[in-house]
């Protein structure tokens, strides 16, 4: 936007014109009035941009936090297996799936990715997600760890920094 504005400064006449035009055609269209369009747009963003978008305004924040957008992010290039939604929602939701599993899996495999692996990536992410959920399940004291230890971390290997 800044660039456009800057450019338009050079052309004074155009500037006046555009300003005039804008005055004429003042947008009857304000994006925030059309949540469905907004959702369509935000659905196509990547994870990082989505998080940034969530800090724009309350509406955007609400939309960006809704799970359906993250669902789209997870299954962008893959047709989701049927009935996956109920499972994922039960295990913690798409945002958790994306942030916890899909994103690290995709970024780690970045260098070796192939398009045909997209489905397997998702399946692997789902499995890891499920394992993580299982680990977090309380249970009297049988978490498989000593009392006073840190939280379950079967996904810890995904969080560690990889040598670039």
């Amino acid at each position, binding site marked *: 936007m800044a660039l456009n504005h800057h450019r338009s400064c050079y052309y004074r006449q155009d500037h006046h014109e555009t300003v005039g035009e804008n005055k004429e055609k003042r947008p009857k269209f304000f994006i925030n009035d059309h949540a469905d369009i907004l959702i369509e747009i935000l659905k196509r963003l990547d994870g990082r941009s989505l998080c940034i978008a969530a800090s724009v305004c309350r509406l955007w924040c609400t939309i960006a936090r809704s799970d359906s957008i993250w669902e789209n992010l997870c299954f962008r290039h893959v047709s989701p297996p049927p009935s996956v939604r109920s499972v994922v929602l039960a295990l913690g939701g798409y945002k958790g799936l994306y942030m916890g599993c899909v994103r690290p899996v995709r970024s780690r495999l970045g260098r070796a990715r192939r398009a045909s692996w997209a489905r397997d990536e998702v399946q692997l992410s789902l499995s890891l997600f499920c*394992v993580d959920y299982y680990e977090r399940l309380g249970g009297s004291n049988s978490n498989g760890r000593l009392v006073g230890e840190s939280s379950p971390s079967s996904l810890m290997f995904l969080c560690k920094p990889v040598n670039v």
Partner: protein
Amino acid sequence: MKRDHREISGATDYSSGSGSRADSSSIGNSIKGKLWEEDRDAGGMDELLAVLGYRVRSSDMADVAQKLEMLEMVMGTAQEDGISHLSSDTVHYNPSDLSGWVQSMLAELNGPPTPNLDPVLADSDFNSSNPQHRQRNQSRVFHDDSEYDLRAIPGVAAHPPPKSDPDSDSTRKRVKTSMSSSGSDGDGSGSSFSSPKENGIPGTVTESSTRPVVLVDSQETGVRLVHTLMACAEAVQQDNLKLADALVKHVGLLAASQTGAMRKVATYFAEALARRIYRIFPQDSLDPSYTDILQMHFYETCPYLKFAHFTANQAILEAFATASRVHVIDFGLKQGMQWPALMQALALRPGGPPAFRLTGIGPPQLDNTDALQQVGWKLAQLADTIGIEFEFRGFVANSLADLEAEMLEIRPPEVEVVAVNSVFELHRLLARPGGFEKVISSIKAMKPKILTVVEQEANHNGPVFLDRFTEALHYYSSLFDSLEGSGVAPPSQDLAMSELYLGRQICNVVACEGMDRVERQEPLSQWRSRMETAGFSAVHLGSNAYKQASMLLALFAGGDGYRVDENNGCLMLGWHTRPLIATSAWRLATTESG
């Protein structure tokens, strides 16, 4: 009084108080002699050092200086943790006896290696022999970079016997040729240490009449470490326990100078050997929940267990393709970490999930808690969350051989499809004669559609102790190496616990015998023949399993080191060139009940 002297590069100037000025020329090294022309103390004690409180005989000066420098070099090149204990642990009785103190420190190093030549000193002139001077040197005639190369060096790997031989041949590269010989020979008055033998030794490393110099180099020490371990094992094999004892202590010292994986492996093996020698056998009947905890950490740190689970699950999933009721029998339930992923895959199966029944088998808990039930309860919760009909049964058994198929209430195959899963459990059965056969017949009675077996790819069940030891050394070295390269920050508790988990296995392989030795891993080829003899035929793990496994490995830091290989339908996970874990799947060769 004759003085021996040499130049000390970089160190402070030693000015000696001895009356050797007149003799210096006789040594034939007037250049060096000038260095010593300074203060001489008629009383035989060095003046300058006396001021500092050290009483050093001038005659000993060069010797002390040389030892100090050696110590400095050794401390500098050895790793930090390696030698600092010397300064605190070495008892120093007479603070003013500098020479003696340094000597005792050096003696503790057990054959201190002399540092490599400083080129400046190449032509310096030196004779050293000192009745207190104990040099234990070893010959080194090879330069080998591989830490794990086990080319035996005849005789040298044995513990060098301590010799307080005043004529001990300590060749140093600094030693000059015959020039000095005449000088020192001629004078024997106040000198307490001149030794004719010392002289005339050319400054070469390998010398037929002398033991050559040892270079300080942690790689060299690493190779020496391995050789000493092997020699110790050989001594144990030959029941030469005294020698083994001495070697084990030597290993401990050497291990201290290493870092990383090598050090840990050596420490564990040394401890296991010590246990074997002293017959302090580890209690295998430790709390099984403790073992579970250790295995959990191992699960998280490295991909081996995850690989095992994912590949076995894939085989089971494919076997369950169209079944409406499924039953999995897990020979080692532990924390049940394998099953969430399978349950999730079943839940997302096209056509809907089957009814899932799990039978978990585990060892008795020391505190009588029902660990199996707790795991079953967690799995039930998960099943409820993702919408699978779930049933769980736990069986406590000391050994798998105690099981009978009838106890498990197997339902007929038309009603329920059965899968049997064993991760690192079958090898333990080999400890008891007939154990494996009994279990196999029980499995056959269960009529499983598929039997998944995951085992370590190593041969720790040979009849000869030394062979087992060598194999184990190779295997666990690779394993520790991979842990090291796993990118986990060093002070991680996970890493330490994983290593402890492996360390206990090492202890069992090396120190235990008979029924106690349960870690009897065998390679895939042997398992194959066992299974085929028993009437099973292999089921090939498909490309799905391979893909999943490869992806899983790529996720791990250090993922470049891990490799998945396919071996006649079985999948093997290895670290670089060494396969470490093998997953295989089997079905009954006869299709009908039999």
